[in-house]
């Protein structure tokens, strides 16, 4: 057998092995999806086939009847939208100023922000509870939206991105009589679109999946987010596995769909700018 043929067989074997590993990796998702279409008794009954014996939509219908489930879902959507709007506006405006406006004390302020970049958010959890209580946003979605909106990490990443836009373009616009605000929204923001999209995607994933902030800062049932809502669902009087899996599926689905259509931005965001969880 020639070396090329040997090499090709090696690659085919490796591909098969990796696909098996990949399927094992997403097995929990397949199990979740298939269980959501099974009657509850069938979920935990051998042979655990991924294709339901009795196919049913009952779990989804019942999910719609669970008190607050729709509210939790809607709360999470509204919270994500508010977070994305606030964060996009605030972080791009701030990053623009740090990159392109030569105001006094800029570098000193930026240095302070950079040192705050190293601080893990966990240490701020307890004091934030006190601050939120003092400014009256405890038990509202703003206790999740505002800390996400005033994030340091993306101010830093976007500023690094904006710096690469040549000053000559900005200066030319100034000579033409553009205000800084106009330069910001009609030149810099459009040029940095990929970086901004990456930020939006990661922020959406983090905000949608957030569990800790909702768990600690939100107490009313009617104001809760989907992650904690799911927990309430699973801790119900009777364990209804089919219902739980339907709840898990509708929670995971939006993220997976967004991810499948925008992978490029996620992967590039991680490899070129080092976004970290």
């Amino acid at each position, binding site marked *: 057998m020639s070396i090329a043929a040997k090499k090709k067989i090696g690659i085919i074997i490796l*591909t098969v092995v990796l696909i098996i590993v990949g399927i094992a990796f997403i097995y929990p998702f397949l199990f979740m999806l298939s269980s959501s279409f099974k009657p509850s008794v069938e979920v935990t009954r051998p042979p655990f086939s991924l294709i339901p014996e009795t196919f049913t939509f009952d779990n989804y219908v019942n999910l719609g009847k669970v008190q607050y489930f729709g509210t939790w879902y809607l709360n999470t959507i509204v919270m994500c939208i508010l977070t994305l709007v606030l964060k996009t506006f605030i972080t791009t405006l701030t990053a623009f100023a740090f990159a392109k406006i030569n105001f006094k004390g800029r570098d000193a302020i930026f240095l302070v922000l950079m040192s705050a970049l*190293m601080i893990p958010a966990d240490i701020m959890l307890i004091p*934030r509870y*006190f601050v939120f209580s003092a400014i009256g946003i405890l038990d509202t979605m703003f206790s999740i939206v505002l800390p996400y909106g005033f994030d340091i990490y993306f101010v830093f990443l976007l500023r690094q991105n904006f710096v690469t836009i040549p000053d000559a373009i900005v200066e030319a616009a100034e000579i033409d009589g553009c205000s800084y605000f106009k330069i910001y929204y009609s030149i810099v923001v459009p040029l940095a679109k990929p970086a901004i999209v990456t930020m939006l995607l990661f922020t959406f994933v983090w905000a949608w999946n957030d569990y800790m902030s909702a768990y600690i800062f939100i107490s009313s049932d009617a104001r809760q987010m989907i992650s904690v809502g799911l*927990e309430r669902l699973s801790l119900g009087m009777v364990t209804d*596995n089919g219902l739980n899996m339907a709840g898990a599926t509708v929670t995971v689905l939006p993220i997976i769909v967004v991810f499948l259509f925008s992978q490029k931005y996620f992967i590039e965001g991680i490899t070129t700018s080092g976004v970290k969880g």
Partner: protein
Amino acid sequence: MSAAATNAPRIKRFKRQAHENRVGYLFVTPYLIGFLVFQGIPFLLAFIFGFMNVRYPNRIGEATFVGFDQFVRFFNDKLSLEALGRTGIYTLIYVPLIMVVGFILAAAINQKIYCRNVVRTMLFMPYVSNMMAIAMVFIVMLGPTGPIGSALGVPLLFDTATALPAVTVIGVWKGLGLNMVTYLGALQNVPRDLLEAADIDGAGRWKKIVHVTIPMVSPTTFFLLISSIITSLQNYTTIQTLTQGGPGRSTTVMSIQIVRTAFTSYQTSYASAMAIIMFAIVMIFTAIQWRGQKTWVNY
């Protein structure tokens, strides 16, 4: 006349600087206020609380400074020290596992395999998914009547002996995609001519990996090593959603212990002191990272 002519550009520059200052402050002020309220003040309060005896937000006026009492208490508190030990075990399992498996998968995908993007997508999916939803799925699958639980005969998450390793492995499963994609990016940047030179010298596949690839990606390895250690310390959501720190106290690590101390037993200052200790540990690794970026990386 001539004095005015030479002053004109200077006045213009001065006016321009004043304008840049005004616009600059206008643009950054909203952010700086938010930063102060949501990051700066909480950070300072975290330290102040650690040296006080604060309990409830509405009775903060009654709190007094108690020096290092909360820290002394920590080192005499058996339950908290055990929690710190469990955090150590979690990290010791999590970090080597995620580093090695992440590298192996990245190296395998980096071969010219078919369906590379499909495989990459499958391995990355856990990273973007909701931990609570995932936890519900694992609880059913690993439960005594679930497909994996009944096959193994041991309900991994519900047995005090296996719960901690089980939540750790699920944490690795969830976080692996990020490490793998980061490694993949680094592997694709390994210069092709170096690998070809090794080919010409007659190096086999393993020799190439050990002597060319691994040294070439050492900066990434170093970065991932430190960030994985830090990630492993921030394991609250993984554990709370899977086991709530149980069964018994078998998965009660520091992050769980801190939240429980602060928000269940309302010992705010004691919890703050524990958070400061964890912060100090994270800072040690961050400092190593900053130094190491310059000195430890070799190729």
